Every structure is written in C-alpha cells, then in structure tokens.
C-alpha cells in the first residue's frame, strides 16, 4: 500500500484540522490568504472523500464489501482507536465534503467577513463531522461530537446579534445536556461491556450475561436519547428551528449535515449492535425510532407549513428529513433503508441550498440575526455596513431567473417531487414499504406522502412570496457569482443524483444491505470472525 | 500496638479534618455575609489539603503529594479572586 493510499482515511479529519490551525498563525486581516487556504483545503477534502467513496464502491476486496480500517497510534482494535471507512461512512464523508464545498464558496462572497475566524471554525466543523462519520470508537465519537458542536456553537453565533445569541443559548444548553447524556450512556456501556470499540461492543451485546443485559439496554437507551436530540427528533428538537433560522446562512447550511450525524449514529449503532444477530437485544428501540420518526416527520411538516420565512422552512425541512429516515429505520426493512439513505443525501444538499437561497432572497428584508439592533460595542454597526464589504463579489445578471430556478429545485427536492433525487429516494422508500404491508409501513407511507404535500404547500407559499410577490420597496435581488456557484454546486449535485439515480440508488441499496450484515464490519475491524 | 496507635491516630485525624471541613462548609452555607462564605471556602480548602496529606500517610503512597501541593500553591487563587470580587467588584482590572 502506498503512503498516500494507506493514510487516505485520515485526511478528511486531519486536513481541515491542520489547515485550520495553520490559519490561526496568521493575522485575521489576511482574508485573501485565508480564503485561499480554506478553499484549497475544502477542495482537497472533496477529492479525498470522493476517492474514499470510489474505493468503498469498487474496493479491491469482496467488491467493496469490506471496510477500510485505520489503526491510530498503531494500536489494534479494540484497544486503540480505529477509523473505519465503509460504504456508509464514505458516503457521509463525501456528502459532507460536497455540502461543505458549496457552503464555503457561498460564504466567500461576504459572510466570512461577518465575524472573526470563520474559516477556522468552518474547517473545524468539517473535521468534527468527518471524524464522527469515520470513527469506530464510541468515546472517540463523543470527542468528535464535541468538536463538531463546539465549532457549531461558534458558527451559530457567527455574525453575532440578538436573535443568534438568544437562540444560541438554548442550542448550547440543550446540546450540553445531550453531551452529558452521551457521556453517561457511553460510560455505562463501558461499565457493562468493558469496551469502547463499536465492533467489539456489537460482539459483546451478543454474548452478554443475561443479568447485565438490562443495564446495557439502559445505557443504549440513554445514548439513543442523546442522538435523538441531535437528530432533532420530536419532542427533543425544538431547538433546531430557532437556531438554524437565526444562524447566518452559511452556518445554517453547513448545519444541515449536523442532524444527519445523529441520524448516522442511530443507523450505525442500531444496525451494528442491535441487528438481527443480537439475540435478546435484536431490534432494541426500533419501535421508538418509528414513533419518534413519525412524530418528527409530522411536526416538521407542520412547521414547514407554518413557517413565516424561508430559512425557518429550511430548518423544518431538516427536521422532516431526519424524521423520514428515523421512521424508516424504525420500520426496520433493509429494502426501504436503501431508499432512505439515498434520500438522506439529496435532502441534506437541498436543505443546505435552501438556507443559502433563503439568505439571498430575504437579504435586506429578513429579521435575521443582526438587523434589529446593532450589538457591537467597539463598532456600532451592521457587519456589512462597510460599503466595500457589502458587495457580494461579482454580481451575475438574471438573478431572479436563476434564483427562481434554484428555488424550484429546492422545493422539488424537499417535497420529494419528481423528477429530482428527492423523488427517487421517496419512491424507493414507498416502493419498499408498499411491498410489505404492515401498520407501520402504512403509517410511514401516509406520513411520507403527506409530508411531500405539506412541503409543497409551505414552500410554494413562501416561494411565491419571496420571488413573485416582492414588495416594491424590497431591495432588488442580487446574487454574487460566488454565492450562485455555491448554491448551484449543491443543486447541481441534486440534479446529477437524479440523472445517475440508478447508480446512486444501487449504491445506497448496497450500503443498506451491507449494514444489514454487521459481521463483515466486525471482521474488518477486529480481524476475527465473530 | 504502635501500629494501632498509628492507625487510629491517622483515622481520628482524618475524621477530625472531615469534621473541620463540615464546619467550614457550614460557615459557607450560613454566611451570613459573603466574606464569611469565602472564609469558609478557604478553610475548607485548607482542611481538604491536610486530609490529603494524612491520606498519603495512611496509604503510604507519595503520589497524592502533588494534589496537596497544588492546593497549597494555587488553591488560594480562587479565594483571592473571590475576595477581590468582593472588594472591587471586579477580578481583573
């Protein structure tokens, strides 16, 4: 194995971290340099992520049916920390990178100047998210969760302002509590099983003494609660809408992936440790996932309909997306899961794009973070008050048409209407659900359909208001080239996903199937046959 | 016999120190004024440190020395900050 190849899996974590730390060594005023650094970093991460994805699809061994394992510090699992890149992880990392690249491009137009150290915080966020996706260790997962959250606190407050701070306070308090729950859960699992490695944990679940199983379940339940908070599952996700609405557009867009981290962990752990082979613990918590997912789906849809502005609708779209996947995970049908994974990709990108779009459309009329009252002490003014800074870079013509098109794509993606990838994912889920008729699947079918309709109703209402029925005194729509490039990139990815839907869906289904066979994962990590 | 004296001596010493801590805590809870509470905390720290020393003797390990040393050297920083806050309303000016 070549040097490059061997350490490939580390790069999605290390690259952003090193670049971000390097950036700290330079003065904050060297904006151009920092932009270049972070763009380079993001591009490199994207390349690495795509390489990982490609490898996980076409891997040399077993046609991609294994996982790439990296032993940090050269300590073998389960003792040391391992990074594991299987199909799911690679997919999520690639998704993060695409989203991150788009968001960063958007931010370069102006938002990176709304507060100090945006680039470093952004790269740290990417690091945390990628780490959470790649790690194969429960406590290390906690650490990456915290990196991700710490960066997200910074980004949520980026640009400052009363609304952001008010929402940020709740956001931080709840996530701190969730972190405590996470710690309790992880340590309890350690206390019962004596391990922190996910793969070994999955093995121990199978063989645990019946006497200890109850405690194990308590730990898993508490851990699950922590993750559901992160997924913004109802009734634990009320923090999401205010926070994401108040956050600056690039931050909110990047946050679209955060709730997916929660979803990812739920999927990963429930399928790895509580799958079919887990004996008495098989399918532990699954009914709760179904209930929570449906409730989240319903609440998100209602919220979407009730939204008064686009960024809030975007926030609820994030909830809808989590709810959908959780509900499907609760049904527990592998055939459906593939569709859900495919849906996850598209909906995340679309939600991200939605936040960006919302900012452009509501620019000047929004009541976002900073307009109401200047919160500066030393500089009593708007972050963009400065004329020189106010320009979103090169302005492109035909903004209305371009934004209208972008909005249309977002709407189709979020509502899951044809012909884009949002639809394909929904179709795949519905198709799978319709095959096995059970009360659960019927409930999910109804939920999915209604949420599509609700999404459509809510978004057209807002879109018509934002694009077609603009007030006369509303500022003219202006969109910078960088902003459009960022949004356009995300939306183009959605379109590409639809065109190559067959391949994409095939990958997602293959991934779901791989997740259904945890033994292969365990073997890859521990090197032993379970 | 002498071992027993050592054992009981140390045990009672510990008990006394814990009792002292309890009294200090009582002062911290009761007040009545802020300076009394801070004084209570200071005493609490002092007795806690002594407890660690006695604990070190009891277990025969010298590893706990550092914990005691840190209380001795740096524990006062917290109390100074509190006192300064009381006096000036600001810890760093």
């Amino acid at each position: 194995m070549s040097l490059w190849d061997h350490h490939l899996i580390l790069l999605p974590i290390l690259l952003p971290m090193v670049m971000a730390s390097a950036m700290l060594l330079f003065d904050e005023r060297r904006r151009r340099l920092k932009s270049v650094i972070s763009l380079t970093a993001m591009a490199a991460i994207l390349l690495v992520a795509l390489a990982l994805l490609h490898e996980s699809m076409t891997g040399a061994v077993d046609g991609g049916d294994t996982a790439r394992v990296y032993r940090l510090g050269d300590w073998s699992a389960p003792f040391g920390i391992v990074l594991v890149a299987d199909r799911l992880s690679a997919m999520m990392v690639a998704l993060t990178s695409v989203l991150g690249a788009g968001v960063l491009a958007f931010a370069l137009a102006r938002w990176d100047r709304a507060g100090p150290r945006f680039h470093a915080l952004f790269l740290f966020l990417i690091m945390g998210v990628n780490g959470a996706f790649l790690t194969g260790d429960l406590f290390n997962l906690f650490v990456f969760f915290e990196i991700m959250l710490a960066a997200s606190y910074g980004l949520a407050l980026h640009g400052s302002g009363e609304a952001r701070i008010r929402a940020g306070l709740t956001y931080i308090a709840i996530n701190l509590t969730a972190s405590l729950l996470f710690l309790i859960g992880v340590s309890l699992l350690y206390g019962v099983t004596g391990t922190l490695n996910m793969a070994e944990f999955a093995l121990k679940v199978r063989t645990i003494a019946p006497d200890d199983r109850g405690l194990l379940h308590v730990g898993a339940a508490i851990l699950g609660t922590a993750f559901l908070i992160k997924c913004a599952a109802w009734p634990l996700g009320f923090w999401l809408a205010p926070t994401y609405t108040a956050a600056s557009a690039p931050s909110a867009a990047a946050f679209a992936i955060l709730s997916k981290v929660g979803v990812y962990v739920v999927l990963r752990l429930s399928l790895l440790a509580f799958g079919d082979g887990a004996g008495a613990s098989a399918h532990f918590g699954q009914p709760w996932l179904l209930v929570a997912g449906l409730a989240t789906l319903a609440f998100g849809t209602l919220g979407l309909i009730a939204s008064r502005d686009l960024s809030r609708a975007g926030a609820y779209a994030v909830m809808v997306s989590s709810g959908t996947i959780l509900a499907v995970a609760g049904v527990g049908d592998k055939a459906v899961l593939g569709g859900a994974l495919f849906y996850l990709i598209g909906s995340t990108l679309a939600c991200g794009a939605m936040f960006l779009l919302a900012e452009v459309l509501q620019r000047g009329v929004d009541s976002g973070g900073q307009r109401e009252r200047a919160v500066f002490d030393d500089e009593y003014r708007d972050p963009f008050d400065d004329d020189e800074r106010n320009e979103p870079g090169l302005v492109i013509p035909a903004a209305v048409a371009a934004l209208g098109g972008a909005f249309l794509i977002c709407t189709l993606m979020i509502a899951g209407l044809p012909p884009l990838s949002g639809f394909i994912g929904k179709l795949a889920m519905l198709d799978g659900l319709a095959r096995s008729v059970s009360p659960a699947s019927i409930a999910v079918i109804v939920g999915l359909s209604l949420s599509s309709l609700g999404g459509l109703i809510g978004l057209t209402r807002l879109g018509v208001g934002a694009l077609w029925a603009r007030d006369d005194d509303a500022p003219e729509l202006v969109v910078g080239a960088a902003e459009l490039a960022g949004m356009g990139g995300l939306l183009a990815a959605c379109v590409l996903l639809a065109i190559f839907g067959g391949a994409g869906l095939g990958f997602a289904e293959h991934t779901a199937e791989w997740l259904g066979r945890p033994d292969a994962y365990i073997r890859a990590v521990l090197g032993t046959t379970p | 016999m002498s071992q027993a004296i050592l054992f009981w001596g140390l045990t009672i010493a510990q008990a006394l120190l814990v009792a002292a801590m309890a009294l200090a805590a009582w002062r911290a809870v009761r007040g009545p004024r802020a300076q009394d509470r801070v004084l209570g905390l200071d005493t609490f720290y002092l007795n806690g440190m002594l407890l660690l020393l006695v604990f070190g003797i009891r277990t025969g390990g010298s590893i706990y020395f550092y914990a005691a040393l840190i209380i001795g050297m740096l524990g006062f920083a917290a109390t100074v900050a509190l006192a300064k806050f009381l006096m000036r309303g600001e810890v760093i000016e």
Partner: protein
Amino acid sequence: MSSNLLLLVILAAPFLGAAVAAGLPRHARTAAAILSWLVSLVSLVSLAALWPRFADGEVLRLAIPWLPSLGVSLILRLDGLSWIFAALILGIGALVVLYARYYMSPKDPVPRFFSFLLAFMGAMQGVVLSGNLIQLAVFWELTSLFSFLLIGYWHQNASAREGARMALTVTALGGLCLLVGMILIGGIAGSYDLDDVLAAKSVILADPRSVVALALVLMGALTKSAQFPFHFWLPRAMAAPTPVSAYLHSATMVKAGIFLLLRMWPIFGQTELWYFVVAGAGVATLLIGAWCAIFQHDLKGLLAYSTISHLGLIVLLLGLGSPLGAIAAIFHTVNHATFKASLFMAAGIIDHEAGTRDMRKLSGLYKFMPITGTLAIVAAAAMAGVPLLNGFLSKEMFLAEVVAGSDGHALNAALPVLATLASAFGVLYSLRFILATFFGPPPTALDRVPHEPPAWMRRPVEILVALCLLVGVLPAITVGPFLRSAAVAVLGFDDLPYYSLALWHGFNMPLLLSVLALGGGVLAYAIFGQKLNTNPRGGPWGLKRLNGGYLFEKAMTGIVKGARWVESRLGTERMQPQLRLVVLAALAAGAAAAFAGGVAIRPSWSSPGASEFIFAALWLTGGGCAVAAAWQAKYHRLAAVVLMGAAGLVSCITFVWMSAPDLALTQLLVEVVTTVLLLLGLRWLPKRREDIQASRAELVRSRRRRRVDLVIAAVVGLALAFVSYAVMTRPMVEGISRFFVERAYSEGGGRNVVNVILVDFRAFDTFGEITVLGIVGLTVLALLRRFRPASDSLPAPNQKQARERAGPVAEGRKAGDALRDTMLIPRVVMRWMFPFVIVLAVHLFLRGHDLPGGGFAAGVALSIAVLLQYMANGARWVEERLLLRPILWIGWGLTIAAGCGLVAIGFNRPFLTSAFQYVNLPLLGQVPLASAVVFDLGVVLLVVGATVLMLVALAHQSLRRARDDAEAEQAEGGA
C-alpha cells in the same frame, strides 16, 4: 430513421428547445417563437413518420434504464392512444406557439414563456408516451409544475399567483395520490411496466389493495381533469396568458386525466368503484360546469366552465364502462381540443384587440372583426353541438351511449335527461358567448376601437376551425383511422365493437335529444338572455354557495393557521420546557429499558471500616454543599460559586481516595480557573433581589413549577444513583483495560497508565479534546469582540466607585492609590510566586508520563500563574510586560500536536504512533524520551493559549468599558 430515435426526438426535442429558449435574451421574442415552432414541428413530423407502424394495434417501445433496482426505466411506449394524444399535443402546441408570438407583449420576458411552454409540451409527451407507471406519475407532476409556472407567468398579478398556487396544489395532491396508487398497483402486479400491468389485470383485480390503488389513481385523474369537486382550480387558472389557457387548460393538460382514465380503463373499467366514482364525478361535473358557464361574464371564465363541463362529459363516457363509451370519449377529446382551443384563441384575440374580456362591456364586435367573428361562431357552434361540425358527432355518440345504457341503476335511468339538460345548457352558453360579444349595438365601454388581429395571429384559429368543419363533414376519412387505432390500443384488437362515424344515423333517440337540447338552449336564451347578461343576482343561480375556490382558500389558510397552532402547542422555543423534555425523555428511555430488561442489584455490604465512615461523612458535607449551592444559586450567586467550589473539592478528594490522582489534579486546577471565570462573568449579570415580589398568580405558578422540577430532579438523582450502584456492585468485566495496564510501560514507555492512554493508546481522543478547547477559545473571542453589556452593568461596580470615594482624597492622593495600597502585599507575593508556579508546571509536564500530571495539568497551572499576575497587577500592567498572543499559542499547540502525529506517517506508521527510547546522556544517565512528550507539549501550548484567551478576553471587557468611559468624558470635556 429508426423508430427509437424518432421516439426519443418526440420526447427530447421539447425539453432541449426549452433549455435553449431559457438561455435566449429577454427580448428575443421572435427567435424564441421560431425555435419553439421548429421544435414542435420536428416532433410532429417525427410522430407522423411513426404513424404507419401501428395501424393494427402494434406498440413501439424504447427502454432507457434509469432506476433498475426499482424496476423503473424510462420506457417510451407509443400505441394508437398515445399517438393521437401526442399528435394533439404537438399539433395544437405548434398552433399555440404561432399564436403566442403575436399575443405576448414584448415587454414580458417572452423567451422564458416559450421555454416553459416547450417544457410543458415535453412533459405532456412524457405522460402520453409513458410505458411505465412511475414514469407516468413523474411526467404527470412535471405537467403540474410547468402549468404552475405558466399560470404564474404574470406573477405581478395577485390573481395569477393565487391561481398558479391553487392549480399546483390541487394537481400535485392528485399527482401524489396517483404516485402512491401506481406504486400499489406496481406492487400488486409485480412490475411497473405498463404492458406487464395490463397483462396482470386479473391479479390486480383479485387483490384487495387494488381498491385503494384505484381510489388513489382516480384521485389523480379527477384532480387533473378538473372534475367535481376539484374543478375549482381551472377557472382560477384563467389568470394565465390566453395561449396557456388555450393549450393547457382546454386541449392538453386537463386531458391528461382523461388519458390516464383511458389507460386504466382496460383494467378497472368494469369495476363498481370505477363506475360510481368516475361516472358520478362525470355527470356532476357535466352539469355543474355547464350551469356555471352560463353565468360567466368573463369570456375565458365561460370557456373554462364549459371545458369543465365537457371534461365531465368525457369522464362520464369513460365511467359508463362500455367500449363504445370509450371510443366516444376519445373522439370527443379530440373534438373538444380543436374547438375549445380555437375559442380560447378567439377570446384572446378579442381581449388583445378590445382590451377586455368582459361580456358586459363587449358588444357588436362583428362589425369590427368579421373574420374572427365568423371563426368564433363556427367554433362555438361546434361546442354547442350543431350538426355538420365535429362537436355534433361526438355529442351524438355520447347521447347514444347514454340512452343505450339507461337501465339498471337509477343513475343510468336519469342519465338521458341529465345529458340533454347539460347539452341545452351548452347551447345556451355558446349562444350567449356569440351573441353577447359579436352582436348587438356597438360597444361603448371600450378604451380603443377594436380591429382584426394580425393575420398570423388568426391563422391558428382558422386552421382549427377548418378542422372542426372537416371532421364534422367527413369524419370517417379525416379522423377515422386515428380513432380506430386509439380504440384498438384501449380495447384491444379483438374486442373492438362496431361503431360508425357517419354524419347521419337516421332518426333515433339521440337525434331527438340533440334537437331538444338545441331547441331548449335557444329558447332559454330567448327567455333569460338579457337577465343573464346583467345577472342582478350575481354568480350562478343556486350554486353561489358552492364556491370551491373560496373553500379551498379557506382550507389553505386554515391549514397554515392550524399548523401554527399545532407548532405552538406541540413545540416550544423556550429553554426550560425543552430542557425538561430532554431530561424526561432520557429518564423515560432509561426507565423503559430498565423495566423491560430488568436490572438486578447485588448489594455488597462488607462490614464498613472506619475509613468508609469518614468517606461517608465527607460526602455528607459535599452533598450538603451541592444542595446548598443549588438552593443559593438564585439570590446568592457568590455563595453558590463558593459552595460549588467546596463540592468540587470533595469530588477531588474522592478521586484521590479512589486511586485517581490524575483526575484530582486536573479537577483541582480546572476548579480554580472555572471559579475565576465565573466571577469574571458575575460582574455583568444583573443584581437579583429577593425583595422584588412577583404577582400572586405568578408565585403560584412558579411554586408549582418548582415542585414538579424538584420531583424530576429527585428522580434523576435516584435513577443515576441506582444505575451507578448497580454497576459498581457488579464484578469487573474483562475489558480493554488489561491491555493498557500490561503494555503501558513496555510499549508505551510510561508508568502512569492514565497518561499513557491519553497521549498514546487513545491519543486521538486527546487530539480531539484540545481541538475543542481551541475552538471554544476562538468562539469566545469572536463573541466577546462584539460584546455589549447591558446598560445597568455599564458603570464601574459599586465597590470600585465607593472605594475611590471613600479614600481620604484630601491628603494629596491620586485616584488609584487606593487600589495600589490594597493590593500592595498580595501583589508582592503573587509576583514572586510566578516563577515557582512555572517550575511546578514544568514538573507536572515532565513527570506526566510516569506520575500524575501531564500536559493539560501543566497548561492549566501555567494559565493560573498568568492569571495571578493579572489579578495582582491588572491587565494593562501585565500586557505591557508579557507578550501573550493566545491565538498563536492555540495555533502552534494544534500544529505541534498534529505535527507530532504526522511524523509517524513519515515512517509509514499510522498517525500518532509514538516511539520511545531510553537515551543515555552524559552525566544524567538514562533518560526516557517518548515522542508522546512532544504531543503533550502541543497540549500545553494549546491549553495555555485557550485558557488565557478566555480569561483575558473576559477581563478585557471591564478595561474596554473603562477606556470608553474615559473617551466619552474626554469628548464631553472637549465639546
């Protein structure tokens, strides 16, 4: 050319054309029109070229794989039915394009209009060419979408926006139902392929799910075809430019529902549900549409309701379930498209030239535009079912079918009457359309003098009207073959019944009914015509209440309001309830798992020794402090800080007691820093007084809240205590720790296992942890840079002010002397402590690998050393002397830690692989050197940077405040 390629051209050309048109500049009206025209012509020619291929019920197929795992491919499937629909779409499309070139104003972005129009055309082609159920649903939704864009084309108008939204909502709702229905059908049939599904008729009908599927599919068809009770969106859609109305809302899109019914007809056509729903909806729509049409004043409104009525007629024909009915339905679909499109275009011309479509203002236009008038009269006659025109033929077939089937159900028996009545209405509104517009006195209320439109704008109307005539006179030659192939596609070659397209069937019942209807209509106009034109009662008589559009809008606002209500009821943005929910959810989850799985406790009461009692006493104190801290935190914040410190110390002692010296060290150090941080923050919080009393109601509420919270807190405490006790009393499980203890020295090079875990076995955790610290540092800095304290915290604290006042100023003292005296002694001590603390930090750092200590502890100790200087001397004094660049420290710390890990990669070992070696140094002897120490150095730098950053950034707020005050004073003095 191969048929595959032709098929592809038919579908793809419009979409390609749409993409190109979208890219044209805003004013390229003619270019866009020519492009669109060419596109539709190319498609039409391709379609025509395919005609000879399937006269006898053959089917052309082209499959392009898309989603193989779902069995969804892009299948282009052309049979007689698709052909005739496709021809209709493309043909009328071409004419509408031509018309629109002249209709659209150059002020509008016309290329975009054509782009949408072409895209819509493509989507319609997609629907009719679908060989796959899902594909059909996909294109179905696309037609809704483009229709939305077209209706909303003049989005400056509120009515256009509302109409567009309503149309989209209703049709998309139907589309979703259709999709689910299709999925169900596909699931039952085992395939989404249309041919397979048609072949699996018996399987489908045998499955109980098919009823649901059918209902859902019908929902789709009925919404799209504007059937009662979903008809209301169509009149609202008239806000669209007239070419759109002519194209979408008469000829094509609304026919998609008909097409779907025809497609499903072979499978479900004979079922009960089909009959009741389809025929029921059809007859209701037929009548209501016709009735409402009579009362319209807007030309387009009249035509819209007339369209609804005619669609109802077709749907009714399909609902009857008889083969002849299906044939009649196809025939009438074609006929309706021709005459209604021409009528819409005529209405558009009138609107264009006269400036209004209001029949109350229009009158006697025939004099000004005789050609248009003639064309409109012919088309309206076709609509009314006047013989020698195409409308008459299909209406005859309809009446014949109604009469033939008038047995069995009561509905059937009533049908002939209802059909005749509806036909009479049709005659009435057709008459009104013509007479009110073209005849009578010259118009008075117009802004301009109307005249004939440009010739090319009239051409499409002429062509369509000519077609009406041609088909009306020579049906068998003109439309016969196409109708036959379409009928074959629906009914199958073998089951094709006999039908005749002759003009004259002899005197029979249908003819009588036709005559009755014509006569009745004319009579009615004679009686009510004038009244209708003024219509003092307004709206359709008897049906004013039945305003679907209004109800729909009510429903939509209701939904939004309801959603907001639910959102506010089931959600909250307040922090306390959310935290409560989080805590309760965790409790519930844990409790549910515990009760389901059972948690056994095996208490182990070995007789407690003296030290156990001491330990218990210790925690009695510590617990008391914690509770007291909780109790004091509201009004006596300082007391809470103090008591928390005490509780923290007790937990430090516990760590020492239970063999965790590292934890004790770290916790102690962190404790100190946290206390200082909190105190720094306390200065900016508002004063809180116990004596401010809330209202009585509030008191009661808050007391109840507290009680609940107290219970929750107690339960949390019990639960956590229970769980930890359950674990602690269990025997240790064999886990990963054995490995750590065994290898710490031999492979990690350190005796302090905890530290070796931190910097070696699980260094990646530490790596992440310091990153968190760094990030927090950055965030704190960012936040505080824009910190604005509340107004009541602005002035210097009372203490300070009072202090300055209290000092005996008289004796020639300067301000600030007081401070210097106060801090005289502490300053000396704290300054000289500085090097000693540094020594301590160095020791903590160096010994970490073997004894308690380590990078983090060293870093915090160093920060405290700096902090002491700040407290003793003030920020300015320190910063003049010590150059602290916390962000640089953070940056270097992270870089060093990462760099240390990266060195391993240079040796082709995994990241963070450590190496250690005993080195023999001269004089010093054997000294252990572990690469992990370098990593730890990074930790130290970062911790110092981050901690100092937080403290200093916070401390600087006071400084800045003071500086600002001084500046303000200066400014005041200067002024």
